């Protein structure tokens, strides 16, 4: 009995505490921002578990370090942190325009290699401003900035076509797949960024600064090559087929009929010389400022035609943009590769081949509802 007991005690005590680490000895990193300065990486970490302030709010802290490699920069940051940096719960990575233009392969290599990081977080580009500033813009609508940005991307991607729901995993997938190039959402700061970083700004109903999602950035391999406009962003999302809701301002009789499509289906007809994109969409009217009689079936048909044309235009513009930058962000090359792998391998460089590749777009649109009003309200008031 004593022998057994001794064995048990020795087994337990000699194992030590193996992977033991108290939670409050960690500095939990929820956001990361990467900038360039004097040919060095500037890495900023958003640490979200500071002590509680007097009004029971958790304080956050942004630490910035620099180094010639990413890891070098992380070690520089850890010189400032009283606790061990813990990046398993990273939820957002912000990359500045400058870094993205030079290529983000280093960053991606580090994030994929690190056993601590999960690959579920979002990546966004910092347009115009420094990435580290975006990490420190406080918002009363979320507990800490990274949460605000993450939820912002998630919900905007669900509700409008301008934003893609592209997390890190999808980004690497596109980066490594044949005939596919990645895209990334971008973030801008609206207002005075210096003021926006103070807690006083948060006390106000109208904050001094806030972050806002902007248009899509287009990549070629790991380098940012250009920006899409708002319309082109919608076109890109439509061609990728990963949208659930998208809206269009349809010009009609010199005014607009706003149409929302909430049932959107896309399929691709792939052949060696061309790809036919068939889009089937259904939707409803949201706002009418033009003169239109909604009880007239012909009018509706005419409007539907107009929507189809508009959708086609959005997509064609997006393709035109991609062809200008010689980067196939829609994955048409990937479709060809999946169907005709031998044919694809004969092509020397898909991205240059893509510029002359024929892509045909067919759209069809149907209204399922026109809202609770039969007429344009403007029409009823003035007639």
């Amino acid at each position, binding site marked *: 009995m004593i022998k057994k007991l001794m064995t048990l005690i020795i087994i337990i005590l000699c*194992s030590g505490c193996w992977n033991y*680490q*108290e*939670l*409050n000895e*960690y500095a*939990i990193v929820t956001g990361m921002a990467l900038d360039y300065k004097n040919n060095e990486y500037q890495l900023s970490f958003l640490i979200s*578990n500071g002590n509680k302030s007097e009004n029971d709010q958790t304080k956050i802290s942004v630490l910035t370090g620099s180094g010639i490699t990413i890891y070098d920069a992380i070690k520089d940051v850890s010189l400032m942190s009283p606790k061990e940096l*813990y990046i398993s719960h990273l939820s957002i990575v912000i990359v500045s325009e400058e870094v993205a233009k030079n290529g983000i392969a280093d960053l991606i290599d580090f994030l994929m290699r690190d056993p601590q990081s999960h690959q579920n977080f979002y990546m966004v580009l910092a347009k115009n401003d420094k990435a580290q500033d975006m990490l420190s813009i406080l918002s009363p609508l979320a507990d800490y900035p990274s949460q605000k940005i993450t939820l912002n991307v998630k919900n905007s991607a669900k509700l409008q076509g301008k934003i893609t729901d592209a997390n890190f995993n999808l980004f690497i997938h596109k980066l490594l797949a044949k005939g596919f190039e990645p895209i990334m959402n971008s973030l801008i700061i609206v207002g005075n960024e210096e003021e926006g970083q103070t807690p006083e700004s948060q006390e106000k109903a109208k904050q001094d600064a806030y972050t806002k999602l902007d248009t899509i950035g287009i990549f070629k391999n790991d380098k940012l090559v250009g920006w899409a406009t708002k319309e082109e962003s919608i076109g890109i999302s439509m061609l990728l087929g990963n949208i659930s809701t998208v809206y269009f301002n349809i010009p009609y009789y010199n005014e607009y009929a706003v149409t929302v499509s909430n049932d959107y289906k896309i399929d691709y007809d792939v052949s060696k010389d061309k790809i036919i994109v068939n889009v089937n969409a259904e939707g409803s009217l949201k706002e009418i400022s033009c003169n239109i009689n909604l009880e007239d079936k012909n009018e509706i048909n005419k409007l539907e035609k107009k929507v189809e044309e508009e959708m086609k235009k959005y997509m064609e513009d997006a393709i035109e943009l991609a062809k200008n930058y010689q980067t196939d962000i829609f994955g048409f090359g990937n479709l060809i590769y999946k169907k005709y792998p031998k044919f694809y391998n004969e092509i020397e460089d898909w991205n240059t081949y893509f510029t002359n590749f024929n892509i045909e777009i067919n759209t069809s649109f149907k209204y399922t509802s026109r809202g609770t009003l039969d007429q344009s309200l403007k029409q009823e008031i003035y007639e």
Partner: protein
Amino acid sequence: MTSQQQIKIIKNTLGNSSDIVTRNINDIISYIYLESVSSDDKISNFLMQSITKITSIEQLFNQLKNNIYNSHIVIETDINKCYYYLSSGYTCLFIDNEKNFIAIETQMKLDRGVVESTSEPLIRGPKDSFTENNAINLGLIRKRIKDPKLRIDELKIGRRTNSKTSIIYIDDIANKESVKKIKDILNKIDIDGILDTGYLRDFLNKKQKTLFPKIISSERPDLACQSLLNGKIIILVENSPYAIILPALLVDFFKASEDYYQSNISTSFSRILKWVAFFITITIPSVYIACMTFNQEMIPNQLLISLATQRSQVPFPTFMEVVIFVIFFEILREADIKSPSASGASMSIVGALILGDAAVTAGIVSPFVIIIVAITSICELVFTDMDFINAIRQWRLLFIFSTIFTGLIGIVVMLLILIIELASIESLGVPYLAPFSPLNLNSLKDSIVLSKTNKREKRASYLTKNRTKVKS
């Protein structure tokens, strides 16, 4: 030998105890009883009346035997047996020059009567419970099962206490071998005394060491009768309001007698809740420790940050925090059960305020630990069997200690050990995990879920060979 001489011998043996009462009538008849356990009324009303009606002294013994107003009289030759009768509340009657004596039942009622069950209350169903009186206990069973095949075998255990112990079973349902096994075990017991059925526990599971109970203790006669009808065996001991039900399986601790009086759907629902509570109450504190100290990546982002901020003011390591609080709660509970109800109020104030709110404000524990301990103890309260609750408490501590050193892996290992342990126990030859392992499809109808009464046609094959329950 005169009757007075015989009584003198008895008095000497009993050491002239103060509760001995003797009387001599006409120098021929003497009787003796112990006033502490006998009813004076019964003796004066019935015994004295019968004796005074006798006129001749011829054939005195036979006259007495036939004329005493009492349905329960015993004629004994061995004077040594009269001590048992005296202690049981009998009056012993001696006649001059007669070897035999008559023991007449004149017991005083020394029980509290049939009252409502306190440890296993229920909402819908019979409210009576076993008491300390053996005859009443047997009666509560007998009046429910009016079957000639109901067997009550009695033996006496305890050199000094001589406690009546009854083994109750239904002859054509219960497994004969099990009955024989129990009788053998009980006959072999040589102990100075047993005061409760709890004394028998260790004799009944001598072979295997386990924390889980292999007997069910219940004070509900309806549960006892349900078990009898399913082929189980019951042991009752004089002066104990708890019946032992054998064999006991894991599923039995998730059942209540009430289950069969309600609709099967609501019973199934409450049983599923009990199974969930069983796993929660065993594992939750250790899962908390594992998540906080080893496997932080398991916690969702926002919860992690709120946990980390809560923890930041606590100076102790997480496991110490949990262990201290779990042990505090065990002590509080122990004190609450044992303390008289008058001090219960102060106990709850101390428990709720000092252990709860004040501990958090003082920064000794984080609020989340209190939630964890509260969940744990609430889930524990769904069970009624004290032995089973104790097993859960001990296993919970084992889980906590293994987690302190190895995190989630420790929980997985302990779960494996728990399953191995459960699978290796047998209660009276029946596997503890039946009907899951070995799988018995028919008995699954009354396990985690309960099917309708008319669909449960057969008894469990591991309990009995006579299996027809409902005839369609």
